[in-house]
Structure formats: structure tokens, C-alpha cells
């Protein structure tokens, strides 16, 4: 299905074919290294007041070191739930999540999370203290070490002047920068980001995307990034996992490593954008037909 779709897009054709996971498995190509994060057939369910909702069904994917791995899908496809599963806030009903070969059991500081909400910073701590706090409690650092490390990352996100400010004095974009600095200062095995820029205005969001890419260029961290914006996925990610809605199932894994902010509006960018758009849009039509029956 993916291959035939891709045939209509000459620019992307070669890449999608060669990087398609099923093709890779079927062929003799063995990935060069062990994946950092392995999600195997994970089904996640949560209870509401009177329903048991299946958020994702049999989702599998592998993330390698220094990946900018995007979970993309319409709202209700369980992408945030999947991220919570990886973070350890939810236990999979089925399947396994392994980090470096060890199964994930509960939340931990080696998988730092950046949330969408601005209230993720502790209001009773200054910017610097917010970044230091997990270093001391979760990272086992001394105060002096933590201060150095924290200031290092506060500088990296450009908030040196605001190190002693409290979160309520900061703008939304600055708060998200602190959250990113806090997560990165822990130097986690993998950084989990749950639509971190969704609540920002368009101009700030674009700047934050640029800054994140710059930071990645500096530090080469691994990030698992949830978004519902195709554009954001193309800009940030090097590999995009497309999920179908309700319950989330894998529809495709695509490469977008050579697309960045500079390629917005370009032919290749538009082609892949439209391709993903069609993929997601097709589902919506099916859903309506199902309802009619």
C-alpha cells in the first residue's frame, strides 16, 4: 500500500521504498546497531467512567540513538497515550516496551518528559532550581555539580538572564524552553516530548522548532516527539511514524531527515506533506462510512 502510494511521488519514491520497515525486514538488511527503544506489539488501554478504551492496538516501532522520531496522527489516535506508555505512566495491556533491552516498569529519570502544559514547571522554584531539582533528586548529583550542569543547559536555551526568575514571570515559550532545558540537563537516554509547542503562538512555535533542531545538532540527543501537525513532523523529525485513528495502529514509517525549516514550501516538502495528509484523510472517510452502516 505504502509503496504504491509512493510510486505516485517520484521525488520520495526511492527513499520510502528503501526505508520502509517491512521491506527492510523482508530483505537481508540488518540495522547497523541495536535499537535504543523497542516498542513491540503494544496495546494500551485506559478506563473512563463507563468504558474501557483501547488507545493503541499492536503498535511496534524501533527508535535508534540520535533519532528524532515523530509519532504523528490525528487526535484520538493514542499517540500521547503511547508516549505515556514509554514514559512508564501506563502499563501496556499487551506487548512490551524496552529501553536498551530492559523492560520499562514505571516512570524514571532516564526517560525525561516535556509536556504540552505550561504548568509542568514547579512554581515554587526558580528557573535554575527547576533545572537543578531532578539532577539532585533523580540524578544523584551534588549541589555544586547540579548548579554547573543546570546553568550550562539554561545557557543553551538562552535563558541565562532569567535563571533566578520564577516560572510565573515567564512567557509561554520561555516556560517550554525551561522544560526542555530541565529534561536535557538530565542527559536522559531518550527525551519524550508531548506536543511541547502546541500551546504556543505560531511565531514562537517556529522559533522553538528552529532552536530544538539547533540543540539537536549540538547535543545529538534522542527524542520521541508527539505532534498532530504534519508540518511540524516534517520539520523536526528524521523518521515519522504515522498512526491511524482510534485505536492507533501503525500506518507507515517515513523518512524526513533531509527536510528542515528551509524546505517549507518546496516541492519535496509539499509532496510528502500531501502524501501524509491523504493517508490520514483516507481514514476519516472510512470512519464515516463505518458510521453509516
Amino acid at each position, binding site marked *: 500500500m505504502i509503496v504504491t502510494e509512493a510510486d505516485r511521488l517520484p521525488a520520495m519514491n526511492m527513499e520510502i521504498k528503501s526505508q520502509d520497515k517491512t521491506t527492510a525486514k523482508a530483505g537481508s538488511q540488518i540495522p547497523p546497531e541495536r535499537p535504543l527503544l523497542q516498542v513491540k506489539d503494544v496495546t494500551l488501554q485506559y478506563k473512563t467512567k463507563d468504558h474501557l478504551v483501547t488507545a493503541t492496538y499492536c503498535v511496534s516501532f524501533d527508535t535508534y540513538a540520535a533519532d528524532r522520531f515523530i509519532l504523528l496522527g490525528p487526535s484520538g489516535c493514542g499517540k500521547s497515550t503511547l508516549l505515556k506508555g514509554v514514559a512508564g505512566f501506563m502499563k501496556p495491556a499487551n506487548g512490551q516496551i524496552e529501553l536498551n533491552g530492559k523492560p520499562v516498569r514505571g516512570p524514571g529519570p532516564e526517560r*525525561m518528559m516535556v509536556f504540552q502544559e505550561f*504548568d*509542568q514547571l*514547579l*512554581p515554587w522554584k526558580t528557573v535554575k532550581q527547576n533545572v537543578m531539582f531532578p539532577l539532585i533528586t533523580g540524578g544523584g548529583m551534588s549541589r555544586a555539580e547540579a548548579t554547573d550542569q543546570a546553568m550550562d543547559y539554561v545557557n543553551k536555551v538562552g535563558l541565562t538572564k532569567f535563571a533566578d526568575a*520564577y*516560572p*510565573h514571570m515567564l512567557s509561554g515559550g520561555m516556560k517550554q524552553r525551561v522544560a526542555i532545558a530541565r529534561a536535557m540537563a538530565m542527559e536522559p537516554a531518550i527525551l519524550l516530548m508531548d506536543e511541547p509547542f502546541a500551546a504556543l503562538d505560531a511565531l514562537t512555535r517556529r522559533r522553538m522548532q528552529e532552536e530544538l533542531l539547533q540543540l539537536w545538532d549540538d547535543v545529538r540527543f534522542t527524542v520521541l516527539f508527539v505532534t498532530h501537525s504534519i508540518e511540524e513532523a516534517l520539520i523536526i523529525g528524521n523518521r515519522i511514524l504515522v498512526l491511524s485513528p482510534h485505536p492507533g495502529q501503525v500506518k507507515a514509517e517515513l523518512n524526513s531527515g533531509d527536510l528542515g525549516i528551509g524546505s517549507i514550501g518546496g516541492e519535496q516538502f509539499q509532496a510528502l506533506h500531501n502524501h501524509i495528509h491523504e493517508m490520514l484523510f483516507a481514514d476519516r472517510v472510512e470512519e464515516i462510512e463505518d458510521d453509516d452502516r
Partner: protein
Amino acid sequence: MTTAETFDAQGTPGRREPPRRPEFEREPKPFDDRVDVARPLTLWERVSEITLVRRLTILVILAGVWQLYALWVNNSLMLPTFGATAEAFWREFTEGRLLAMAWSSIGVLLKGYLIGVAVAAILTSLAVSTRIGNDFLATLTSMFNPLPAIALLPLALLWFGLGETSLIFVLVHAVLWPLALNTLSGFTSVSETMRMCGRNYGLRGLFYVMRILIPAALPSILTGLKIAWAFAWRTLIAAELVFGVSSSSGGLGWFIFVSKNELLIANVFAGLGTVILIGLIVENVIFRVLEDHTVRKWGMVR
């Protein structure tokens, strides 16, 4: 005229189009010196910004009204003047009797308050960590919170005899329930994001409660502490009025009771004034400072 033109352009009357206006770009004008960008406030504006000044003014006006009315009534047995009350207050204060009485009241109060706070902390910790603890606290709070502490005094006297222990028992009852109720509602209103953050750091158990839940719920906890303080203070004075002879030094309630018996009405007012004064100091100095250095500084309350 413009409308008519657009009609013509469209060819279909009734479809209004906004007029086309020319585009322009321009540099902002250099700022005019005569407009204030930032000007220091006048002395009057600055003084009226100070909360203490505004509140003291209200107090002075109230004292003035009292003085005039008392002079008009002219019956020192029913309503002594503000001047006479202030004089009685100063006399009792400097002679040491009032201070000692107030101090013994505060001593008992603090003991009861601290025990109540400790028990409330234990109960709410149980309530947030286990479901049965939550049920336990919810049931007890709904049972005992409406029960006036002073109503337990006869029972306390029977159990613990005439003395400080009975007072402390009643005080703990006055403090415990409002504080537990507020603290619990504070804990339950901590946002899910903040909880997940704390657990993301790998915090668990007591550390999690101390480092995340308590600071995050501090606005509610402080409200609970304030309400509990007021309840305790009221209960104590009332209890002293009923059976003041708890110990040789009496207490403020006892001071008021005795002064009334001796028809030293100015002293009664001085005693009441002391009760009010201590309440004001605790509310506006101690709790205010506590809030300024915590929740207000953190932007959790305005």
C-alpha cells in the same frame, strides 16, 4: 460613493465590498518630550499604595467614632470611651498582668495548634496514599467538622479533669478538621501534569508528598492553617470564659471574666482589644509574611 463604485465593479447590487485603501509603510515618530514615559508617583499616590496605611486609617476612624459615641452615651459602666480603654490597656500591659494572661493563653493555644497540625498531617497523608484512609478522613471530617469544639468541653473535663489537658483536647478538635479538609482538597487539586513531573523524576512515597504535593497544595494548606488558627483562638477564649481557672495564671478569657465581675469594664474592653490585636498580628504579620515568602512569591496567589 465608494459603495456605489464597488456595486458597479461587482455588477451585482447588494453584495457589499470593503473599499480598497492605499498601502503605506512608515517609521514610528520620535517620541515627544512632553509626554510622560515614566514619571515618579506623587507622595500622596505612594502613601496610599501602602496597605498598612490604608488599614490604619480605617482603624483610626473607627476609634474616633467609638470615642464620640461613648462621650455622647456618657456611661462608663456600659461603654467606656476609647481613651479610657486605651489607658486601661496600657496600665494592665505595663503592670504585666495582661501580658502574662495573654502569654499563658498563647502558650496553651500553640500546644493545641501544633498537635492538631501534626495529627492533620498524618491523617491527610494516609488519605492521599490509600483509599481507605481517604474514606476514613472524609467520614470523620463530615462528622466532626460541624461539631463546635466548645461542645466537647464538658466531656473533656470529665475525662482529663480541670486543667490544660482538657483545653488542649478541645483545641486539637478545633484545629484538626478544618485543616485536614483544606489540606486534602489542596492535594486533590494538584494538576495531573505536576504529578507526572514529580514521578518522572523518580520521586516516590514521602519524598513525593514533601517535594511535590505539599508545595503545590500550599495555598490551600495556608488557608486551612489560617481558618484553624481562628477556630482555635475562638475556642480557647470561650473555654477560658467558661472555666478559666485552668491554671493559676488564668488566661485572656479569664481576665475578661474576672474584670467583668469586678465591674472594671474598661479592663473588659482592654481584654477584648488584646484578643483582637493578637488576631490581627497573627493574620497580618505572621501569615502575611509566610504567604509573601511562599505562594505570593511563586505566583500561585495574587
